[in-house]
Structures are given as structure tokens and as C-alpha cells.
């Protein structure tokens, strides 16, 4: 198990810049997720950690030992790819056993014992003789996981392993992977574009955008205290509004600021930065923080679309030409509604 440290890692392909200086660290035994939209550099970062790409600048180290010039096969990492990349000409058991040609099984186990153990771990006991082509997507993914874990790697890397699976299966496997990871305690870096997934399974996560890291933190931190506009809009659903500060008193945390948006005035409670009157600012309010007929920060909206989600309904409404999203379990057939929110739930970015 190892700590991973990336320091100012840059990567350029010909004239495209994939990573523009990534610095982050993953703690020993942590489940760390890189999340972001396509092209943000999360896969490149993962591949750099794996040694499949060499950074054009910056360094990668495990437990403080720099890995420049160390090829993938010597880094002791396990990788699960999006397409599982099982060896088609080998059986399931042979796939899982492959890494054990280059490293002895831990704890003095024999290869066969180790393979059996791992297949049990991923709920595929007895399937050793099957061929990859005979397995379903979920089963293949679990074989890939077992294969990666067999040589007891220091670091486990997963590159969007669930994207090809249906939603139900994805959730189930997610839990399984998380359980295995915490049982084994192996440092894990997980890449996904699905922010909901990232929030659900990570110990900490990094939101990436355009080759850089926007924010690192626990799921709750990132969700409740987005550091940038991008994070605010990418992680979870959010309503972003831009306006001008009309009132600002004092400095420091937790003061309330009044922002005028198209003439409507809103009180914003969660503020970290120092802003002055007349500044252009953006603030965000989570859909669940908007309540129908709320007492503070009231404004009128026209409901356009409703999506029934089971435990709640998501509404898309129009306010002054902007789309506002809010959630409430009650059903509202009416067109016009008044919404409001607590200033403490509004955050200045």
C-alpha cells in the first residue's frame, strides 16, 4: 500500500496539452476519485500514475520515491480498464493468474489458491474454466478486478470500469468494489465522469477540468463548498446566478451579502471571499435548498418540465429567461410558483 504524490505533472501530446500542472496526493489506503467531463485529463493522469504515459514535466512518486524512468511493469500497480481488456485466448483462471508469473502470491499461497481466493472475493467462484467471451459485462469486470488484485499491487487504478454497464449493475458493482477495497486497504485511484458515482464511493475526490485540478476534498466538502463555478455546476445539480453586489458588510466568513440579479435582490449567506459593493459575483443554490413558498429570498417562476424521480420530483422552471431547477416531493401542477431559499444555503463563488 502506498501514498501517491503528483507534483506539477504536465503532459502534452504534440500540440495538445492534456495536463497543465496537476498536483495532488493520495493517502495510503484511500479511495480517491478523479472526476470530470470528457477530455479533462483524468484518464491521462491515471495513465501517468501507471507509467503508461511519461509526464513532460513534474513528477510522480509512491511513498516519496520518484518514479521517473520506472516502467509500468515495475511499478506494482493493478489496472482495470473500461473495456476490461481480458486476454481473450486465456481462461478466466489463467487471466487472473497472469500477474503471478512475475510475482509470487503473498502469504506463501500457491498460485491456484490465490486465484481461487480472488475469484471468491469477486463472487465468481468456480468460473475459472470459462472463457472471457462467455461472460457478461459485469462478470468480465469482476475478472478484470480479480486479475489486477492477484499480485497484491500497491496501487489499484480503475479507469471508468462501470461505464459499459447498466445502472442497476453499476450500483451493485460499485458497492462491491468499495467493499473489496476497504477490506484490502489498497490505495485506489478511480476515474469516472459520473459525479454521482464519485460522490457515492470516494473517500476524497478531485474535480478536474481542462487538464487541471479544480478542487480536492471529501465528497461532502466538494458538494457543499464548491470552490469554483465549474465545480459548483459539475458536482450535483446547481443553480448558478450572476449579479452585482449591492450590499456587503465587513469581511471574513459567514457574512451576508446582497446581490442584485436583474433587479431582484438576494441575500447570500455562505461567503468566503472578500467582496465589495459593485463587484460582479456568482452564487449558487442547490435545487433541494429551494422550497416552494419559502420564506426568504422569494422569487416567482414558471414551471416548464417535471421529472418524477420516485422519492422526489425534479422541476425545471423559468425565471427571467433562466432555467431554475428545484426539487420537492410534493406534486405541483400549477404553472406559477413562488420559490425561496435560506441565505445560508446560497454560496458565493
Amino acid at each position, binding site marked *: 500500500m502506498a501514498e501517491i504524490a503528483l507534483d506539477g505533472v504536465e503532459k502534452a501530446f504534440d500540440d495538445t496539452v492534456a495536463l497543465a500542472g496537476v498536483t495532488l496526493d493520495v493517502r495510503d489506503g484511500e479511495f480517491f476519485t478523479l472526476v470530470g467531463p470528457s477530455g479533462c485529463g483524468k484518464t491521462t493522469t491515471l495513465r501517468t500514475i*501507471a507509467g*503508461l504515459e511519461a509526464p513532460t514535466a513534474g513528477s510522480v512518486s509512491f511513498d516519496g520515491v520518484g518514479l521517473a524512468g520506472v*516502467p*509500468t*511493469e*515495475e*511499478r*506494482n*500497480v*493493478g*489496472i482495470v*480498464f*473500461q*473495456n476490461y*481488456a*481480458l*486476454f*481473450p*485466448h486465456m481462461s478466466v483462471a489463467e487471466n487472473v493468474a*497472469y*500477474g503471478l*508469473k*512475475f*510475482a509470487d502470491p503473498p502469504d506463501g499461497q500457491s498460485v491456484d489458491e490465490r486465484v481461487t481466493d480472488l475469484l471468491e472475493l469477486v463472487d465468481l467462484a468456480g468460473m475459472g474454466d470459462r472463457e472471457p467471451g462467455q461472460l457478461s459485462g459485469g462478470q468480465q469486470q469482476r475478472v*478484470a478486478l480479480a*486479475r*489486477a488484485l*492477484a*499480485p497484491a499491487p500497491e496501487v489499484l*487504478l480503475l479507469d471508468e470500469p462501470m461505464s459499459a454497464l447498466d445502472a442497476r449493475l453499476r450500483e451493485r458493482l460499485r458497492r462491491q468494489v468499495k467493499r473489496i477495497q476497504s477490506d484490502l486497504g489498497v490505495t485506489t485511484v478511480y476515474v469516472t465522469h459520473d459525479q454521482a458515482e464519485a460522490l457515492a464511493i470516494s473517500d476524497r475526490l478531485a474535480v478536474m477540468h481542462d487538464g487541471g485540478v479544480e478542487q480536492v476534498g471529501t465528497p461532502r466538502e466538494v458538494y457543499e463548498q464548491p470552490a469554483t463555478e465549474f465545480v459548483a455546476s459539475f458536482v450535483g445539480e446547481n443553480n448558478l446566478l450572476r449579479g452585482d453586489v449591492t450590499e456587503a458588510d465587513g469581511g471574513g466568513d459567514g457574512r451576508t451579502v446582497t446581490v442584485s440579479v436583474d433587479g431582484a435582490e438576494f441575500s447570500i449567506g455562505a461567503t468566503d471571499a472578500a467582496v465589495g459593493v459593485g463587484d460582479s459575483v456568482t452564487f449558487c443554490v442547490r435545487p433541494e435548498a429551494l422550497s416552494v413558498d419559502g420564506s426568504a429570498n422569494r422569487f416567482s417562476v414558471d414551471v416548464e418540465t417535471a421529472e418524477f424521480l420516485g422519492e422526489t420530483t425534479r422541476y425545471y422552471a423559468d425565471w427571467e429567461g433562466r432555467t431554475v431547477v428545484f426539487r420537492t416531493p410534493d406534486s405541483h401542477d400549477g404553472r406559477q410558483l413562488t420559490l425561496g431559499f435560506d441565505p445560508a444555503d446560497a454560496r458565493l463563488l
Partner: protein
Amino acid sequence: MRTGRLVDRVGVPLFAVATLAILAVTFFYPVGIVLVEAVVVDGRLSPATILDIVRSEFFFGIVAAALDDPGVLVDSFPDYPLGLFGFTAYQALLSTIASVLLGVPGAYVLARFEFPGRRTVRSLTALPFVMPSIMVAIGFVATFGDNGVLNDALRALGLPTLDLLYTLQIIVLAHAFYDAPLIARITAAAWEGVDASVTETARSLGASPLRAFRDVIVPQLLPAILTGALLTFIFSFMSFAIVLALGGLELATVEVWVYHRVNQLDYATATGLATLEMMFSLALTYGYLRYEARQRASSATRPAPRRDLFGSVTPTRLAVWAYCGIAALIFVVPIASMLLASVTGPNGFTLENYAFLVERQADAYGFQVKPLTAITNSLVYGVGSLAIAVPMGVLLAVISTREFTGRKLVDTLAMAPFAVSGVVVGLGLLRGFVFGTEVFGYRITIAGPIAIIAAHAVGAYPFVTRNVVPALAGIDGTIVESARSLGASRTRVLLDIELPLVIPGVLAGAAFAFAISIGEFDSTVILATGGSGYTMPVAIERFIGRRLGPATAMGCVLLAVTAISFVVIDRLGEGRGLGG
């Protein structure tokens, strides 16, 4: 395992060095010592020989004339004399087109239809390749001659007969005979790798089957078709014996001239011509390789199911049957004619030709050619050259798929044996090997089995390479990366993962390589001179006389031996790797 790790580290590089050494000794050196005469005049480097040829209207037609006087381009438009090179390129182009037109439908039948004996037919697609030109000539005369099968049939139907012999058409047809099966086989392999879902998507979007074929399938087949087309063009361009046998001197190609000039011991002109041939072929190859690099074939997750060849009559089936009829005429009838000729004497059916073979085997003098020796030699050389050509070819394919600057150049040079005149190679082998080379005060001669095997291997390995490269390139990168992450070194990945996955490609290349070895004549005849190292094609040539019987009997033996070998090689590959 220290030795294991040592093998890991030095395995591939050592192999690479060995391969390059073999290539250097068996090909570049012999060819070099001959071609050097094209650029050395009176002991000094000089372009005079080559320039003389380029300026000669006989060789370069309008190009040569234009070099002297560009005005000629305008004056003689559009009657441009082609010159020898122009004509050679022209007939090669026609041959390529004909081969593609004949070969691609064949690929369609092989890839998309089911019929009894399909696998055997597929194995036998390499058979025409093996046939020595004299056999093809005999078969074609018997099929397409004035009194041949085709004309007899036309007469019986009351249709006008066709005068095909000694025309450009028959040469093109003969080249197609050799090369269309090659194209069919390579394209069929690619066709089997086309995913059904791609076609189905196109259909669901409104494309008719024909449109879907054109827009979706053809692009996936194009790399394979172009590989076949390139090989066909180069073969037809360098063609010699079949052109003379069926076309007569009026339709001579450059290679005919090279051969003749060598016979007159006029090495300057011969090597000048050969050098120009080689430059042209290499340039073509380089251009093709640049194209090939941009294609990425991928293995099918779900190939479409096959249809039965025999069944209810539909327009498609009718067209396919019509094609099969034409294919039968062009490919099967000449071979059948040869079989027939071997059991026909002046007075009808007879086995005396085969009896001759048996008697000769029993009673021959030491200096005479014996059939069984020829067969054994052919097989030994075939297996031997496979043993060298397959590893060499695979290694060069591996090198070709790694990224490094100058990769295309190395790839082109590796394909050089295709592009160089067989006569020149033979001459080089004669001078360099048989006559011996002086090194450090010793004269080293290399002749006999090892020289022949080396010569065959060098002529054969490009086939292996060209079949393995697309397969290697089609392996998903993530599979390789997974293996590396699990601790496998580059060499181990190659051995454990990549090579097992390309076995179908290796076997396909091996079959053709074997065919090349069996059918090889020019170099073998030089290296086996005077000894008992002769092969079946050499024996066939020896047995040609007034009566065609003995030669055709030997030719049938060659076909039988080769057919069995192909089926064996192909069956070895059944069920191995993907898509068998």
C-alpha cells in the same frame, strides 16, 4: 530464474540482430554486389547507365522523348508511346484491376457463405500461386487456346470463338489466375472480422444492403484489398516467364529484358533496368505502407452469420453462382486441363507419364533428375524456409508496429525482396554464394541446402510480415497495457499476449510463404546446379520435352503435394486464437 530474465532482456533485440544479419547476408549483400554495376562505370560512380536507359525511347517511350524535347508532349498527344516500362506498368495495372474484380467476389463467397468443403477451398486458394509458369501456360493453352475447353464449348453452343492466346487479355488473365486467390484470401480474412452491428446500424438508418456495403463494409475491407492489390501489382510488374509463355515477345516486360541482358552478359543494362524496377516497386510499397499505417483494423465482436450457398434462388445467389462459374473456368479448368494432360497420350487415356516418373525414380543415373528426390527436397526446403521465414516475418511485423522514426523506411526495406528482380537475386546468389566471397584471405562458398533455404526464406518472409502486421495492429492497446501493469516486460507481453492473438495471421502468412518456397525457381535453379538439391519446379522444367506428359505428371505431383501441405497448415490453425 536468471536465464528467464536474461532471455527477456536480450531476447527480442538478439532476435532482431540475427534477423538483420540473415537479411544482410542472404539478400542485401548478393543484390548489392550485382546492382552496384548499375551505378559504377569504369570503376567510378556514375549515373550514366541509368540515364541512358531513362533517355531511351524503347524503355521509357514518351517520357524519354520529352526529356529531349518537351514539345513532343504536345505534338504527339494523345498517341504517347508507352515504352517498355510504360507497357509493363500498364499491364500490371490491368492485371491488378482484373485480380481485384475476380478476387473480391471470391472473398465474399468465402466469408459470407457456407457450403460443403468451404475450409478446404479456402486452404487451396494459395494453390495457383505455386504453379510454375510453364504449367500455367500449358493449362491456359488447353483452356483458352483455339482448341481449348472454352472455344470448344463456344463452338458447341454456336457462338463465335475467342482468340485469346498471345494477347494482352490472356496475360492479364494469367496474372489474375495467380493473384486473385491471394486477394480473395486476404480480403476474406478481413471480411470475417467485420462486426455485424455496424452493418445493421447502417441498415436501420435507411441504407439499402448495397449502400450499407459501400459505405460501411468497403472501408473496413479497403486495407486488405489494397494489400492484395499492391502485392499483385508488384508481381505483375516483375512478371517474366508467364508473359513470354502466353504473350509472346511483342508483349515483353522489363523483366524479360533483364533476363535477356543477363544472358548476354550485359550486366550494365540489366542492372540498370533492375535498379529502376526496384526503385519503382519500393516507392509504391512505401506509399502503400504510409496508407496502411493510418488504418486500424479491429477484431469483430460479432461477425454476421453465414448464408448457405445452395438454397432458394435469389438474385444474390444467382450472381454468386454466376461468379462461381466464372471462377471455375478461370481457376479450376486450367488445373484440371493439366491433370487431364498428364493422363492423356497420343492415343487417349494412359498412365505412362506417371509410369515414367516411377521408372525414372528407380533407374535414373546420378546426373539425372529423380522425382522423389525433387519432392523430398521441396518439402525439406519448404519446412526449412518456414522455420526461418516465420520468425523473421513475425519479428519484422513486431518492429513495424512499434513507433520509432524511420519506421516506414525500415518497413519498406524489409519488403525489398518483393521489389527486386528474381533474375538479379539469382545472379547475386550465384556470385556471392556459389562462387564464393573473399573475406580475410579465405574464400567462403555457400551452396546446397542452406543457401537454397535461405534464399527461399528471404523471398517468403514478406508474406508473413504483411499478414501479421494488421493482426498485431488490431490488438487492443489496453490488453497490452494490462499485461504490462501485471508485471510483464515488453518481451513477455509479446510472447504471452500478442503473438498468441495473431496466430491466424501468422498461419495465413506461413501458408503463402510455404507456397513461395515450393514454387521458387530462379534462385533454386542456380543454387542447386550440378547437385542433387533440385526441387519440383526444377524437375518439371527438366521433364519438358516434345511430349508434355512427363512434365504435366510431375506438375500434378507438385499440386498434390502442395495441396496436402496447405490443408495441413491450415488445419493446424483451426480453433487457435480468434476467429480460426
